[in-house]
């Protein structure tokens, strides 16, 4: 009787596990199914060769060039990663090596809090405070630059927290050996700690990049959303994510399908970054 009860339990657990595990497959399947009509009707090249993005006219009259959005996403994410990486690493170093213990703990809590703030709140703050500020200098203010700055603010806590745990994973003995050899704190960090943690740090940065590419609301609210390849930091841009958020509400048929193609593209880019990041991460402590 006992065995029967346990067998039943295990069966239920396996069922739930299978359900949880299959959701990501379900997502890919639905994206593919919805993207297929556009992929079939338009082929692989029209996404970058068409004259513009005017997707409402069907396969004949419609124009499906996604490259302004691809460039927008790439530019915003690259800018944010370039800006956030040194800041996050400095922030992680502060937490780990420079702050007194209690202050470091409080600071970490603050960064965790920052990581949990909704993107729509960042976006709103960017819209009402940051873009007018940029606009006063160079109108209109809703620009690639605003997007980069807000994204930086959003991925900074993520990278910082992960970088800190990468630094924490460096064996204590390394630091002690460096101290025994009389290295100063900065020399220890530069010559021992950072090199020892480099895979973990890279993993953190890649995850930050993935977050930047996938971020929707904050970017949507500050970048102006004009479909045009930006010529400067102060031009408005539209990212892939913002494009979906703006158009899914009224998109029909091939247009809708094209938005799922861009979703698939996003998912592919993010999965690639997350995959590399997971592979780099120092040995997991599962089991």
């Amino acid at each position, binding site marked *: 009787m*006992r065995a029967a*009860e*346990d067998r039943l*339990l*295990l069966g*239920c*657990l396996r069922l*739930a*596990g299978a*359900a*949880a*595990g*299959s*959701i*990501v497959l*379900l*997502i890919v399947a*639905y*994206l593919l*199914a*919805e993207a297929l009509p556009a992929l079939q009707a338009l082929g692989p090249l029209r996404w970058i060769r068409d004259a513009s993005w005017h997707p409402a006219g069907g396969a004949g009259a419609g124009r499906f060039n996604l490259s302004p959005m691809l460039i927008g996403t790439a530019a915003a994410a690259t800018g944010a990663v370039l800006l956030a990486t040194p*800041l996050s690493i400095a*922030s992680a170093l*502060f937490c780990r090596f*420079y*702050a007194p213990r209690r202050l470091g703990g409080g*600071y970490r*809590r*603050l960064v965790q*809090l*920052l990581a*949990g*703030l*909704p*993107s*729509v*709140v960042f*976006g*709103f*703050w960017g*819209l*009402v405070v940051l873009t007018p500020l940029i606009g006063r200098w160079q109108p209109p203010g809703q620009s690639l630059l605003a997007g980069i700055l807000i994204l930086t603010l959003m991925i900074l806590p993520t990278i910082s927290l992960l970088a800190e745990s990468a630094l924490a994973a460096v064996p204590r003995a390394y630091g002690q050996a460096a101290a025994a050899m009389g290295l*100063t*704190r*900065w*020399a220890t960090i530069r*010559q021992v700690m950072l090199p020892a943690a480099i895979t973990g740090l890279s993993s953190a940065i890649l995850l930050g990049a993935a977050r930047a*590419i*996938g971020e*929707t609301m904050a970017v949507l609210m500050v970048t102006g959303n004009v479909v045009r390849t930006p010529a400067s930091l102060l031009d408005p841009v539209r990212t892939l*994510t913002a494009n*979906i*958020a703006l158009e899914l*509400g009224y998109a029909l048929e091939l247009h809708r399908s094209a938005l*799922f193609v861009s979703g698939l593209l*996003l*998912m592919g880019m*993010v999965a690639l970054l997350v995959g590399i990041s*997971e592979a780099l991460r120092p040995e997991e402590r599962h*089991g």
Partner: protein
Amino acid sequence: MDRRPWPDGLAAALAWGVAMGITAVFGLVLADLLRHGLPEISLGFLLEAPREAGRAGGIGPVIVSTLLILAVCLLTSLPIALATAVLLAEFSHGRSGFARLIRASLDGLAGVPSIVFGLFGNALFSLALGLGFSILSGGLTLACMVLPILIRSAEQALREVPSDYRRAAAALGISQAASLRQVLLPCAAPGLAIGVVLGIGRALAETAALLFTSGYVDRLPGSLLDSGRALSVHIYDLAMNVPGGEARAYATAVVLVVLLLVANALTLGIAELWRLDGGTSR
């Protein structure tokens, strides 16, 4: 070599400067929200229905919709998450292939961008299953999204229960099911609670996944099949689509951030209690 003191001083100054800068920006954002948002908030604002597209009135129905979406999300995700966590923590000896597959898939799920959840939820729940733009669609979409967080933290909580307890239960001859019910889950309860609060935080903060699943309707929902507007969506709509909606958007943002801060304080509180408790019982 680096014996000269100046790079050390410079590095320390930079680290302190960056940390202070981040703290300052964070403080600036919060202060700005509070300064503009707090004066708008009153009991009436929390209870009344929005008028003039949200420029006037309150956010009563929006709060109700948010809570309903959250309830749907938790009621569907919690059982699955708990069962999966038990499977991974208690029944997967070593590194079985099935467990590894589930873990890899959950890691993948955790990385999916929220707008892609929106596409997926719209395609599956709203259209294929015919739920339309509804609280049910939104809640189910969020359930998929918070699953990895819930499972990860529940698994962690179960793993922190000392193995002696399992051996003691086994020595008493009670079944694994009973030991789970009577020993392991109660012991892991605080950790499980932390996971739930983390999940709530993530769900409350979400916007993009809800735009095309639970929709924009700001009336009080009559059933779970009605569209309902979440707090985050309300902020977005007021800020972007309603000229003059800024003041109420500020106020709504304050409500949302306060809810998240409460959730955050709750996790810290539970963690603290748990640590004290663990210190005495171990």
